[in-house]
């Protein structure tokens, strides 16, 4: 057997429907494809307008002449550079095949007359549906099926047109006759803006995210050191009467107390190759990021999202992953996204990339751990200062209740040993070491005073010394000089505590948890304050499980 000889009849027209349905399961992906073409054409600004029947996408890229626009209609053949350009598979232009009646692309370069390409998708689908019906009724032999070439030739027009018809430089995509089944999503501004913010290389929101400039400049700087591109675009989204310039989703308000720690960066590289850079902002407190959809890291190739944020979870300690917002910016031309854009195509470099991401994750974990240890230290100084103040207030030099005095003593010793231990482990920020020492000294003084009071109980007609008398006031003054920040509690029962940790619980488990809460934890609690204390301790324990 030698090599086979093929003809146009060897590729049936149905392949177009099969390919596009498989590659673009989410109708919104079609917008990403056309915007991507604009970005590959050097566009700096893209405008997407969605109406009930039409979607238009205008870009200010270099545009196409009639020869180039003709080439754009090819399937699986692309002049684009797989390394430099994001789209290169030569199928994206057909991504709206199942979505609309017609696709018209107008384009104009500075040197040529405008031109357009019009694809009658409805006409193509009718031909395919018709032959499918006939095949079902045995009215058509496989040899009679329409081939791809004939289908395209009879339903695609490419022509030059006038400047009046398309005066702008760049490209305009018109998707007309939108199928009503997709309209609900397309006409929902929140859904569309959220999607585009994730998948398109948008600028950072400089008004609402204080690290925007730092992150953008740092990535540009690192990329330029390695002769790589990191370009962002301006995107206007208009849905009916609602229009907004979109930016990347990240805002200060995504973080607790409207702030995060300074962004951390990590260069992904081997000895010879630069792969990209990771940036991540850690929540300012030991809390997960409020918006679930922003928790963790998102891979972006040339700004276009690859997969979603669940992809990299396995590389991080989950407890820290959910406290970060970040991105993995990949610029290496040899890392090529797969067809579905949910991962990179298999290659050795892909393996190296994920190894490298693993190393980066260790650094991000370590940073989070050290920082959050400090945060925990802050919280413990704050909490225990308040606790010690309360004991100091409740304690009386003239108390005769020995049990209570012993309880006080135990609690004060616990506080002292906890903070001393932290200090010794250097897990208290330098700025708060003074507070920690004040707290320890206060605890020591109070311990002495309580001990003296207990001793007095065993003696007859013992006198309270002047030093003992002055101690509570002195301690109170010392503790007041420690600036404490009351901690926000976002739970008031066991279930809401687990919910605040984003632990997924089904209906049956909720019922069980509520029973345990009522019959065990609440019974253990002396009062509401104590109940919350127990919950706080439990939270710390649960967090350690991660």
């Amino acid at each position, binding site marked *: 057997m030698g090599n086979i000889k093929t003809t146009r009849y060897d590729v049936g027209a149905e392949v177009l429907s099969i390919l596009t349905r498989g590659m673009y399961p989410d109708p919104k992906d079609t917008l990403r494809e056309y915007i991507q073409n604009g970005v590959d054409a050097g566009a700096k600004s893209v405008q997407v*307008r969605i*109406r*009930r*029947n*039409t979607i*238009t996408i205008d870009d200010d890229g270099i545009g196409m002449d009639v020869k180039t626009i003709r080439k754009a209609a090819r399937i699986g053949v692309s002049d684009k550079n797989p390394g430099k350009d994001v789209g290169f598979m030569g199928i994206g232009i057909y991504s709206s095949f199942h979505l609309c009646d017609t696709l018209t692309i*107008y384009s104009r370069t500075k040197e040529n007359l405008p031109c357009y390409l019009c694809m009658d998708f409805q006409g193509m689908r009718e031909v395919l549906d018709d032959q499918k019906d006939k095949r079902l009724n045995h009215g058509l032999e496989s040899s009679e099926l329409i081939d791809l070439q004939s289908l395209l030739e009879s339903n695609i027009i490419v022509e030059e047109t006038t400047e*009046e*018809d*398309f*005066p*702008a430089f760049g490209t*305009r995509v*018109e998707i*007309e*006759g939108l199928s009503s089944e997709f309209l609900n999503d397309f006409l929902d501004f929140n859904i569309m803006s959220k999607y585009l913010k994730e998948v398109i290389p948008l600028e950072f929101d400089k008004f609402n995210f204080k690290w925007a400039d730092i992150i953008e400049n740092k990535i540009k700087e690192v990329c330029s050191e390695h002769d790589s591109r990191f370009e962002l675009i301006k995107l206007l989204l*208009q849905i*009916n*009467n609602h*229009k907004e310039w979109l930016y990347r989703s990240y805002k200060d308000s995504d973080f607790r107390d409207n702030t995060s720690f300074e962004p951390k960066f990590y260069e992904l590289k081997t000895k010879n190759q630069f792969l990209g850079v990771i940036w991540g902002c850690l929540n300012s407190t030991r809390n997960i990021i409020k918006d679930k959809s922003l928790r963790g890291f998102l891979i972006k190739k040339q700004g276009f999202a690859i997969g979603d944020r669940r992809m990299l979870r396995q590389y991080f300690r989950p407890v820290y992953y959910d406290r970060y917002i970040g991105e993995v910016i990949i610029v290496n031309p040899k890392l090529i996204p797969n067809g579905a854009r949910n991962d990179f195509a298999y290659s050795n470099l892909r393996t190296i990339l994920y190894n490298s991401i693993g190393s980066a994750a260790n650094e991000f974990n370590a940073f989070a751990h050290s920082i959050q240890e400090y945060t925990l230290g802050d919280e413990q100084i704050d909490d225990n200062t308040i606790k010690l103040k309360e004991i100091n207030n409740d304690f009386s030099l003239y108390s005769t209740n020995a049990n209570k005095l012993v309880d006080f003593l135990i609690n004060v010793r616990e506080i002292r040993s906890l903070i001393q231990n932290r200090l010794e482990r250097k897990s208290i920020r330098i700025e708060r070491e003074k507070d920690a020492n004040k707290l320890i000294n206060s605890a020591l003084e109070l311990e002495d005073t309580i001990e003296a009071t207990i001793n007095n109980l065993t003696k007859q007609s013992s006198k309270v010394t002047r030093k003992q008398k002055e101690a509570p006031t002195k301690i109170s003054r010392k503790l007041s000089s420690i600036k404490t920040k009351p901690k926000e509690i976002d739970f008031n029962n066991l279930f809401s505590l687990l919910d605040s940790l984003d632990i997924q619980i089904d209906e049956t488990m909720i019922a069980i948890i509520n029973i345990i809460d009522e019959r065990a934890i609440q019974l253990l609690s002396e009062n509401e304050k104590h109940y919350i204390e127990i919950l706080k301790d439990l939270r710390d324990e649960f967090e350690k499980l991660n």
Partner: protein
Amino acid sequence: MVSKFNSSANKEIVRRVWNAPLLEFLTTRFDKKLAYFGLPSPRAEDIHDWIDWIDFIVAFQCRDYPKPSDPSQSDEAIRQLESNLNTLLRKKKINDYQLYDGYIEEVVMRGKDNVLQEFHLENFITLFNLDFCNEITVPQYVYNDGTDKFEKVYKLHVIKKIIDLQRINNSHPERFVTFLTVNANFWKKEASNYLTQILREQIEPDFLKKIMRLKGVDRKVRVLKHYVYNSLSTFFCSNNYIPEFLPVVFYRGSGDQNLVQFCIICTYEATMGNSSISRQSFSHFLNQGFLTPDTEQNQMIPMISDHIDEIIPEINPIDIITSANVYNEFWN
């Protein structure tokens, strides 16, 4: 179903010879293109005719005129208009547009269209083209979500609401023009009530006495002038817009309907919470004859009654505006 109000030769002359020079004048005076608000047909003939002076459009398109809106009706007319407006965007003839699915009455009064798109009027409109074609007193039946019933909404209520909204958006150039086209017939209960009322109250009695000598549409169209001037002046003045009614155009539209087009220039006047006062003589407006398109000469010509004395109207809209009191008081 496409609207049956297709363009007629007469209508085209009105748009080109009477309306267009006025729009050109306003565009030059405002030093910016106009924001259009109206009821174009799916083919958007008026917009195409005036495209050199418009750069923003708010359009309403019903599905199956004159039947009340129903989700089962085809939305082909809206799709066609959308396609036309998109073409204008592509050609960079306009900057943006808003298109609502439904009768203007239902969209404006309900605050949303048939596909639940919210109605927002955020731009200051400088050109209203309210081409109703049926009688001003014919109500539109609009579904009320609250009562679950269809309710009557009158055109004047809608105009009043629009002018209220316009007042909220008041901004430079603080002036606008309104073309109001309605059927020349003025009948039914509302019309006879109005005639009874103005006869009783003796509002412009000499004019009323004079027109009682006329019959049929000749009388009705003159009572209609009285009615529209009287009602709209109140709406405009209460929102601090001083109206100037230009001569009324009377012509035969498609389907042999007698149509009239009112053209009102409005200018904002800052007052200390009081209504503005019209500077125009009601009597002069009423006693002025009509303008009508002449298809043979392709121009507008005066049309006065053979049976009563009427003032021959000026035919050049620019001369009319520039000689108006409001123009000389506020525009110069």
